[in-house]
């Protein structure tokens, strides 16, 4: 019997497998393929205060073991989301982490105020790292001071109950200092990593392939970047819960992120290739934990950080 349950701040989840924001829409589309109650939680697509069209097409290019996208936060806006999408998820008895994104510190605070009064939410993801905004200066997570101000504003508006998970970008020089900044400002947990800023040039047109020119790279191609980011941040902030994501496609990948320090693992791009991927990953993870004689996910979190002398000498022969 393996205890798969996990916590992010004061929120409890029966499984460490989550959808990744922007990769499950609002859950309805996946419900035909998986039972949403079986996973840790549905992390909804980052929603802004107003409805938004997003970026022009083409919005996608496949790359070796990955893809780049430039959706640009297309969505219904927070009011419609709270009136329609959230109640549906709650009616399905799915646990929900709502992800919000804003263009200003004030917009994040406004979103937090609206979410505060909505029932059925386990945690709030504050996406300060979407790479597909028109002004790169608005990627708050690339600026330690801006990151802190956003989280500070959300914390003050939200009060103390709902856990805040700050979603960070790997496209920074010193990720640990940004992580420390948002934790100091009131984040209860960190989501690592968002997509990696990237570009594909189309050889037919000999111009950038995406309508928005740049996009976010996701999929197995970025998994080692995620593992590194989680490892570094867990090393510096061992008590801060991390929701890890980045190219997880198998149970092996999920375990790798957990060993690096993740308490939960989000499945994103893998769901595009297989809408039931999250369930197979969950089953594979359970088996891998059993084989390694872990009796809970909690025991494996950050296990890659144990001192060298603890390593079983049998592996060194």
């Amino acid at each position, binding site marked *: 019997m393996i205890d798969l349950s996990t916590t992010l701040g004061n929120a409890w989840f029966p499984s460490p497998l989550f959808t990744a924001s922007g990769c499950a829409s609002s859950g309805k589309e996946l419900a035909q393929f998986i039972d949403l109650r079986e996973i840790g939680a549905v992390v909804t697509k980052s929603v802004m205060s107003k409805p938004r*069209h997003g970026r022009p097409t083409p919005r996608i290019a496949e790359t070796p073991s990955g893809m780049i996208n430039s959706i640009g936060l*297309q969505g219904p806006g927070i009011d419609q989301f709270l009136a329609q999408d959230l109640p549906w998820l709650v009616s399905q008895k799915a646990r929900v982490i709502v992800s919000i994104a804003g263009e200003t510190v004030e917009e994040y605070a406004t979103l937090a105020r609206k979410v505060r009064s909505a029932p059925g939410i386990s945690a709030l993801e504050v996406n300060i790292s979407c790479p597909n905004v028109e002004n790169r200066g608005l990627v708050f997570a690339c600026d330690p001071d801006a990151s802190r101000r956003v989280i500070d504003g959300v914390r003050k508006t939200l009060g103390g109950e709902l856990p805040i998970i700050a979603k960070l970008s790997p496209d920074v020089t010193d990720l640990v200092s940004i992580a420390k900044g948002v934790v100091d400002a009131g984040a209860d947990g960190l989501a690592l990593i968002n997509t990696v800023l990237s570009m594909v040039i189309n050889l037919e047109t000999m111009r950038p392939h995406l309508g928005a020119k740049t996009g976010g790279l996701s999929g197995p191609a970025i998994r080692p970047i995620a593992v590194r980011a989680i490892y570094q941040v867990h090393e510096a902030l061992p008590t801060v819960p991390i929701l890890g994501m980045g190219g997880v496609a198998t149970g092996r990948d999920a375990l790798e992120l957990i060993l690096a320090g993740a308490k939960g693992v989000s499945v994103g791009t893998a769901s595009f290739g297989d809408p039931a991927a999250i369930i197979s990953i969950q089953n594979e993870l359970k088996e891998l934990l059993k084989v390694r004689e872990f009796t809970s996910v909690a025991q494996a979190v950050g296990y890659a950080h144990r001192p060298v002398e603890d390593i079983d000498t049998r592996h060194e022969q």
Partner: protein
Amino acid sequence: MSPINKFSGRMIATVVSNKRVGQYHQILLNVGEMVNNCKPGNFVAIKVGGENAKMILRRAFAISRVSLTGPYGGSMELIVAPFGQGSKWLCSQDEGSEIDLIAPLGTAFGIPTQPVRALLVGGGYGSAPLFGLAEVLKNRGCRVDMYLGASTGGKIYAPMEGKRSVNVLRIYTEDGSMGERGRVTEPIPTLIADGLVDVIYSCGPMPMLRAISEIVAGSDVVHQCAVEESMACGVGICMTCVLPVADADGNVSMRRSCIDGPVMDGANVAWDLVGKVPEVFP
């Protein structure tokens, strides 16, 4: 439950046959009872490249035809042009190979309750789903004319058995190497002016769909088109395959061609905004 993707399922299908037809491959897959839910216009998302492929996304193909009573039970026919890495892989799969697929996906062509005069217009391999549609329309007592066009004769897909379901089959090529020289859209204005068509069903390149939409504008002819836009997931979660589409009030928003399409009313697509973004949100 949600109505989105309601009849879709994932399965491992077997390749019953894989025949080269001109520049295309006609691939027959054994899908069993899944055919009961497949309608003309629906598509299938296929995992390509095998177990350790670096291609992580499924490839979407229009379902050409389905048959419930084939020698192997329910089967699904695809017409595939081996142009990209994924479609080349699919075309290289021999009889007996196993294919991981999700189907049926997307909207279907609307079938009229009364017999109508239908014109089916296909561009290049866009003709694939039209043959299955022609059979359904014919069984409803419709008059079915099919016009197929391509840049050159080698890109026309028109199998002998497909011709049985249509009253008239005309072929147009830009280089005149097959059928009549010219574009497949050129004869349509006259047909409409002469009152010879009630509904146009189209599938092919976006410029062709746009041209037909502009031709039928202002007439009583209904235009149902199967659109084409780059797609990552095929099930509505990635938001990459969007098109600007107007609702009943004329407000344009970005709709997913996988779940709100591929079949759309051509009159609702804001063709001038494809590849752009509407200025304001209603």
